[in-house]
């Protein structure tokens, strides 16, 4: 059963109209942060969402977590659409969908002691009596590798980046969620401590049986941690499939370009040359078709006209490229050590 589904979700941010536009009655310009997204998150999986900045992955996260209302489409939690939920169900939803944030320095209230920060969720939602909350707080702090006696009374500024991120994880997990969205949780940490936090997330997900949606621009990390990967470009989901499939056998020209641009920590290996044209464009009221068309070396007329969103068929390797099976596109397979 899918824990969470996004059905045809779109998010448009409208820009204020210029005076000349108001006078000439032109419609407001908009940024399509997310476009016609179909996504299903399974039980017990780690789904990676990858893409560059401005691709809409963080917006997708916020919409799926119910913190932002989409302009179109529905978010469905265990069969129930979010929009139709009553107060009690909403509360259950809020509890079962949690987020781990990117910046360990910013995601903790500087005025709260660690113990209070972790207890805040259960207290706000009045889940348990205070003694039970205290116990759960201690147990989750232990689970993330922080000794409760040493850390509960401290303030965020007394902790290192890695410790703060562990607290962030604890605040999300204390509520015992089904799904945890992790928005680039490692990018602000030193490299030598990332591996531990990544391993922590992986082991907690397996142990406590929650699904994790890991949002990142770093394909190397996703290759290491994710079961499935979805690639986004300027609001459109362009490819989805198992991590191994997507990274060793990409179907979409953008994915191919991305993969060949990722540096490899091994001087003996030559990566490919990304086949891509021009700089990132602003996603303002562009054409109706595939957003990658302006930069795609294989774009044809049809690509500019229409966009084929990914359907939510499960666990299959799909891409939104209209030309994906044509010979000149397929031929450019990234040469990779299938490691």
């Amino acid at each position: 059963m899918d824990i969470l589904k996004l059905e045809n979700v779109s998010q448009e941010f409208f820009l204020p109209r210029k005076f000349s536009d108001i006078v000439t009655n032109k419609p407001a310009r908009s940024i399509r942060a997310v476009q016609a997204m179909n996504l299903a998150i399974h039980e017990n999986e780690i789904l990676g969402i990858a893409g560059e900045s401005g691709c809409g992955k963080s917006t997708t996260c916020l919409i799926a977590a119910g913190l932002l209302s989409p302009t179109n489409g529905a978010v469905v939690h265990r069969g129930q659409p979010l929009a139709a939920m009553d107060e009690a169900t909403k509360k259950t939803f809020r509890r079962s969908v949690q987020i781990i944030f990117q910046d360990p320095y910013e995601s903790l209230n500087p005025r709260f002691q660690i113990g209070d920060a972790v207890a805040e969720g259960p207290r706000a939602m009045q889940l348990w009596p205070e003694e039970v909350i205290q116990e759960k707080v201690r147990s989750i702090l232990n689970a993330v590798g922080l000794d409760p006696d040493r850390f509960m009374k401290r303030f965020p500024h007394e902790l290192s980046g890695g410790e703060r991120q562990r607290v962030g994880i604890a605040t999300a997990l204390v509520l015992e969620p089904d799904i945890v969205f992790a928005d680039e949780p490692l990018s602000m940490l030193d490299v030598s401590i990332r591996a531990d936090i990544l391993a922590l997330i992986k082991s907690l997900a397996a142990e406590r049986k929650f699904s994790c949606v890991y949002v990142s621009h770093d394909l190397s990390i996703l290759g290491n941690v994710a079961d499935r990967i979805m690639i986004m470009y300027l609001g459109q989901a362009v490819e989805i499939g198992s991590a191994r499939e997507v990274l060793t056998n990409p179907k979409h020209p953008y994915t191919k370009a991305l993969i060949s641009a990722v540096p490899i920590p091994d001087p003996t290996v030559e990566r490919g040359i990304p086949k891509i044209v021009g700089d990132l464009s602003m996603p303002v009221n562009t054409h109706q078709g595939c957003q990658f068309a302006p930069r795609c070396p294989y774009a044809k007329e049809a690509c500019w006209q229409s966009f084929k969103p990914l359907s939510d068929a499960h666990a299959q390797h799909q891409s939104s490229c209209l030309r994906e099976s044509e010979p000149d596109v397929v031929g450019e397979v990234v040469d990779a050590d299938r490691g």
Partner: protein
Amino acid sequence: MQTFGSRMRNGWSTLHRQYKIMTSNTYGLIGFWVVAFFFAVALFAPLLAPYPVWEMQYDAETGQLAMLQAPSLQFPLGTTHLGYDLMSQMIMATRTTVMIGLISGFISIMIGANIGLIAGYYGGLIDEFLMRCTDILYGMPFLPFVIILISLFGRKIEFVILAIALIVWRTSARVIRAQTISIKQRQFVTAARARGCSHLRIIYRHILPNVLPLLLLYTSFNIAWSIVTEASASFLGFGDGDTISWGGMLYELWLSGKTRVAWWWFLPPAACIVALVTSLVFISRAYEEYANPRLRETR
């Protein structure tokens, strides 16, 4: 649960922290002790005043009405043209001034802080409405407003306090709103929403503690402004008729026509107004350093 004893200890340590902040630089230190001095005088006023305020005094030597006497041993600050002892007046007036200052200051910061927090957090129509109210009040000329209020309801101390509070809250509302908007964007507020906190909980439990340094700064300012405002109103004759305040003393002086002669009557109230207001501003300065941008620990 927190025991009463631990709450007391928490309260004390908070006060102690405030003391440390206020006295963190020289200005704040001077300011704090001057304000403490005036506060003590205000508190113990009836015990300190040597003579009743509105009782005409007689010179011990000559036995005559002690009119317009310069400072002497018997009357350390001299007397008014009607023989009232100025020292007693000053002491009792200190109580009035400090009390009005504190009450108006606190009422105004309560109004200003809440309006700022709510307008800043909710945005949209609520923000528009509240800010337009603020703008209208900005346009309101203070004195005519006070005159109307007093004329309608009489020269009572409650109206003076009310009038002052209604004017002084404006700037603190704007500033606190601005800071609320900036704090609202920070990730820990999104995190709090994700953890299920209601809007009110976020405003008062998550945002307010982070706005607190600025709020305390403006409390100090508001008290200072209230005192100046009260002194101005009283000086123009719109103060409370029964209780004496520093501004009121200057008003009496002006009425008597002896301004150019009785320097001992003029100097103490004027100097004290300046001293108290300046000291409050010094304390605000100390808070400003603390609030602005709060030193984050090095990463």
